[in-house]
């Protein structure tokens, strides 16, 4: 349409900080981006790998995490930053799992293909491991996101304090939430293996 109609200006303008050209950058938020990248790239990739089970996909998602850090950094830097990275990483990882559901058929096919191409001894084991992994991923994808994040973060060796910080929960409640998440996971796991 012509600019004439546009001059009517139907849509509210965004606050200045949200508009293109003056995005707050990581540097402005007081984050030494290079140092953070060097320190956290591998841990974040490893964390996401635990969820998606594929290094290439884990790196793709980690790239998203750091792009977000660069484009829309959290307001406070410092020790909370690792928590932010872990939270965003697990979030995106779980999102990827959920949107993956409908592709499961093709993945199963490619897993079988992979297995067939391996030496005979290894094929059965690889197939079994991979099916086990898919089952765990399916359960994580259908759990409440915070419960799934909690299990993943804990499994990857974070302390209660770190988990609490990453998920913005009180440190004193991590034990309770963890016990609940484990019970939920186990229940779903049993149900899947009975059905």
């Amino acid at each position: 349409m012509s600019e004439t109609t546009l001059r009517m200006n139907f849509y509210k303008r965004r606050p200045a900080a949200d508009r293109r050209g003056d995005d707050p950058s990581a540097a402005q938020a007081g984050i030494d981006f290079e140092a953070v990248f060097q320190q956290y790239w591998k841990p974040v990739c490893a964390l996401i790998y635990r969820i998606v089970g594929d290094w290439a996909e884990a790196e793709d998602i980690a790239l998203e995490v750091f792009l977000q850090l660069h484009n829309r950094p959290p307001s406070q830097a410092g020790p909370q930053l690792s928590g932010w990275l872990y939270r965003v990483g697990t979030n995106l990882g779980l999102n990827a799992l959920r949107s993956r559901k409908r592709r499961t058929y093709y993945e199963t096919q490619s897993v079988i293909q992979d297995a067939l191409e391996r030496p005979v001894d290894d094929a059965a084991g690889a197939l079994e491991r991979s099916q086990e992994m898919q089952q765990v991923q399916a359960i994580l994808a259908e759990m409440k996101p915070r419960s799934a994040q909690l299990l993943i973060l804990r499994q990857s060796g974070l302390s209660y304090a770190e988990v609490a910080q990453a998920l913005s929960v009180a440190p004193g409640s991590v034990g309770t939430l963890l016990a609940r998440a484990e019970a939920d996971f186990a229940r779903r796991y049993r149900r899947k293996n009975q059905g």
Partner: protein
Amino acid sequence: MHLKDGEIRAYQDQELQVDRSSQVEAHLASCAACRERADNLAKLSREVGLQLAATQADSRSSPVHADAGRKRFASAIQAQQEKQMMTNKIFSRGLRPVWVGLTLVVLLAISLAFPQVRAAANSFLALFRVQQIAVVQFNPQTMGMSDQAAAQIESLLSEDVQFEQFGEFQMAGSAAEAGGIAGFNVRMPEQAPDGDFDVQPGGRATFLVDLPRLKAIFDAIGKPEIDLPESLQGQPVTLEIPRQVTAYFGECKPEDAPLVEGQDPDMPQTKPWMQDACITFTQLPSPSISAPDGLDIAQLGQAYLQLLGLSEEDAARYASTVDWTTTFVLPVPYNDMTYQDVVVDGVNGTLIQQAYDPTYGSYILLWVKDGIIYSLNGYGSPDGGLQIANGLR
């Protein structure tokens, strides 16, 4: 007083303060019920730990390196900036509100697709082509779009939408030359003086359906009940805007337009050079939107009206009177503007005027003829515009 599960769990993970930890230990030694629960919790934790371990079969053999990651990141940032530049280019000349509006329409189109989407949603139709323009009045204060929704849509525009631009901005010395560049027959009044024509670039926006983000947008606009079929994930929706030609009558001299210091050059703004003696005349073949097959377009239209703040009943009543595949429904705010139907260029058109200032306020005259959208914009009395429109060859 028995122990809570959470405390037992924290004790087992050695996450309790030392003194509390020894209290728990003492209680467990003396309480069989808590001991049994502790055993169960420990067993559960071990089980789940083993099952989760399936996801890390070879997590020690990490092939990941920070330096390689940093290189990928650098090129991702560069790609982002290039896309941003392209986005800026297309958004400049004040096109942005139209993108936002059309994107909304497209989003709603997709959102309402679900009951009809077929398993093989890979056949496409030209969903939308403007043949006429209708006006709907709305109250900007009750518009259903929150800042959060607008921010979501804006990030969708900058991240999920691919923009391509056709051609460069060009000047032409005659209607024939402008038409040759733009690819359609450019019309002018018989007695029009010689002047410059601006030929704006055309554009194509391709949106690959991103279900999680759409879900976030529907939540933000207060329609969380909209559920999208997963078969739409990754499906393309394409909006094409052809090249448009603008001519100027009177004392316009757009090339003299000063850039106002401190003003966002991309935002629509009052141009000091646009005196009441200046009339701009724009013509543009209809934009079109293609989307996955099976959309309920009337429903989409109704949701669009509701988003503008109309009540469900009003929206339904209005929506049923409009052919949504051919009608561009232009939202006109109450109070600020008035509109009336006029006969122009031999067809029915719409005249929109600024309500508060009929003497110097701007007017827009809009009509569609033979697939081309025409728009005349001037100030004060619309007589000059009507004269140009009715003298078109």
